[in-house]
């Protein structure tokens, strides 16, 4: 992964490629880990919802299409 950032100084017109500091690299890793954790949580939530939905359809003895008809 790139350890540099591009900065365009609009006042001087200068474009520079700058190395990330150690703190910025660490923050980027932390951001990526936080994002991955959030995505995993959303995926688990969606899976739980799908499981609950399937169980409810079984309990009601109807298909997903029939449920959609009922819900209009």
């Amino acid at each position, binding site marked *: *992964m*790139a*350890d*540099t*950032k*591009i*900065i*365009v*100084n*609009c*006042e*001087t*017109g200068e*474009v520079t*490629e700058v190395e*990330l500091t150690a703190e*910025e690299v660490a*923050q*980027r890793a932390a*951001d*990526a880990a936080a*994002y*991955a954790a959030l*995505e995993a949580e959303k995926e688990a939530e969606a899976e739980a919802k799908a499981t609950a939905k399937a169980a409810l359809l079984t309990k009601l003895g109807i298909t997903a299409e029939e449920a959609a008809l009922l819900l209009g």
Partner: protein
Amino acid sequence: MATNYTQIGLTANVGSGGASSISFTSIPNTYTDLIVKVSTRWDSNSDGFSYIRFNSDSGSNYSYRVLYGDPQTSSSGSVSSSGTDKAVSGGSQWAAWTSSTFGNMEIYIPNYAGSTYKSFSGDGVGENNATQTYPVLSAGYWNSTSAITSITLLQASGAFVQYSTASLYGILKS
């Protein structure tokens, strides 16, 4: 009312090593609105969105709502969030999608130099040849009354690859 449309500074071009972010700094306060035009590709497949920060503020000061769609599969959705450390600005091109192809995005920032809270809108699309496109619309808010003097474009995970570009324009209404 006439409108002048001027590039501010130079276009950022990502070199062979890639770039974690692209920033426009020392933005003058002499325009009415700003537009950022972006052509990018990422080196990861972890997120369908691009992000933006203002004045290097990485505090929990952003809110946004996003609409996205996949015309190929007829699926769509929305995402909203508040109190985040960056806002979704649009979509782009995943690493796994059509090679040598770049997604595009445009971000409009009205009244960026004023003393009111800052809003923006963005739209972008990535393309996966003959399989799908992935349009993204975003409306966001930065909880600050400061004039915008810098803009940073970044990802949640990954970096911009070589040949990605970003350009900043000022709109002056006269």
